[in-house]
């Protein structure tokens, strides 16, 4: 009834199970929203049992405007998302938050599990102008199934992707941080972008700090409004309280992991 370009109803084109607990949802969007890699949307089924929307990182924005979101069924909200069927309606509010800054290539991207999500759009939209390597980690192979989508971006991308799994079911057996140490030892990188579980991001930030490499982290925090009005997602930084939804979700690692 009352319309704003920042919040709109979209039809689900596909809600594909990528692996156990991992889904990729595609929304039909009539217009291009000019979302930047690293930004997120507040998503909610039009008919939802939940009081709040869920902040979900943008996976991909297609040239016709369609939006893709890669998510992990962590709680009841994302579980509800996974039950949605093509043709049903979603409410998407966004794009929200800041985006990955443009820094000197080559970039080293480090993603853990569902934290791989923002790197797809980053690679897809900037691969013409930047060189990169992607280090992908997960507990088991299920968390790395999504890499098939990454590899489909272009045939040469495969050689820029390094995989690690805790159980060794795919790629190197071990943590993605071991891959990080290896790559940093053999090649120069302009900066490291990391998104994943907090302990992993902290470990990556420390490795970068020890080597004097700039590191940017994409944070996750429980949110209510997504636009900075409720200050529910604020975190403490040396330069004051910052809202993950507004000043973030991307922060310089030294700003958020400084202890």
């Amino acid at each position: 009834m009352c319309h704003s370009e920042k919040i709109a109803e979209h039809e689900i084109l596909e809600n594909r199970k990528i692996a156990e607990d991992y889904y990729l949802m595609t929304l039909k969007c009539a217009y291009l929203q000019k979302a930047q890699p690293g930004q997120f949307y507040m998503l909610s089924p039009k008919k939802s049992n939940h009081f709040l929307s869920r902040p979900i990182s943008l996976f991909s924005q297609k040239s016709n405007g369609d939006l893709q979101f890669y998510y992990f069924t962590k709680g009841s909200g994302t579980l509800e998302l996974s039950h949605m069927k093509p043709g049903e309606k979603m409410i998407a509010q966004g794009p929200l938050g800041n985006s990955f800054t443009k820094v000197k290539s080559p970039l080293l991207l480090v993603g853990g599990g569902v934290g791989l999500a923002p790197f797809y759009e980053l690679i897809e939209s900037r691969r013409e102008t930047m060189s990169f390597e992607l280090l992908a980690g997960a507990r088991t192979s299920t968390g790395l199934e999504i890499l098939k989508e990454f590899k489909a971006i272009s045939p040469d991308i495969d050689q820029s992707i390094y995989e690690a799994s805790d159980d060794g079911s795919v790629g190197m057996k071990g943590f993605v941080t071991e891959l990080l140490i290896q790559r940093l030892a053999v090649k120069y990188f302009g900066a490291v972008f990391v998104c994943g579980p907090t302990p992993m991001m902290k470990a990556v930030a420390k490795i970068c700090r020890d080597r004097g490499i700039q590191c940017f982290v994409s944070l996750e925090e429980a949110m209510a409004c997504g636009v900075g009005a409720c200050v529910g997602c604020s975190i403490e930084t040396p330069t004051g309280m910052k809202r993950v939804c507004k000043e973030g979700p991307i922060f310089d690692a030294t700003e958020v992991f400084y202890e």
Partner: protein
Amino acid sequence: MSKLEVNIGGLQLKNPILTASGCFGFGQEYQEYFDPNILGGVALKGITPEMRKGNLGRRVVETPSGMINSVGLQNPGIENFLKHYSLEIKQTLSHTTVIANINGKSVEEFVLLAERLESLKHIHAIEVNVSCPNIKQGGMSFGVVPDLIKQVTQAVKKVSSKCIIVKLTPNVTSIAEMAKAAEEGGADILSLINTVQAMAIDIESKKLVLGNGIGGLSGAAVKPIALRAVYQVKSAVNIPIIGMGGVSNWRDVVEFMMAGASAVAIGSASFKNPMIFPETVHELSNYCQREKLESISDIVGIVHKN
């Protein structure tokens, strides 16, 4: 005169829809969504004398039909507010009623805040938050003791020429007693309810979900509680009421008005749907037409007469 216009406590509101303090920042975050000047009023986020970081750790959690927050009054403090936010508010909220929300740990702090706001012509009213349940030493102690409510209301009234709204907590034995105390203290308007004290536990980690442990419940879950509170307060006092607590659509607005609220604030329902503000104003206008009301005020407290 528009059917939606309401006059309360010396304030002339273009319609009875307001934002609830703490849910709309300082009025800037939703500019890309709709013009806040279409609202009857905007209640700003709570201000304290000093800058406050608020509570650390997780601050929000969804619960059935609602949410619990323990933001803990994060705000830049009154001096930073005057320096960095006031001008923007003056420019962007020039055609609506602006309500500053003040929070003190002592009567003196409430007085200081009211004094610092006195010269700002674009702040039309002051909401005295005697009820914020999140601060360990502070608001709560005022809001649960009638004498303290009366004392702080009197003190603020004495130094301020603005419309004084006293915001009441539902976490008391008798909210009507608290309302009477504020009225005796000279309050122009009462606003109610603030959030209901609540908590959530993570059964996996066996810990409290919120960093602060206890927070305030808001959302549809508290609406029947809020409605009952407005109804009881309406019976107890003669000053106007701004009703709030879980308002999720225009029907809820009508319910609060029928219970005795002259105006109604929308809070956490706007997190999922910020467009609820323009939608509700529009629907209320339709409601007046359908019901052939001359003024929306005609339904205020109607259930007390029926």
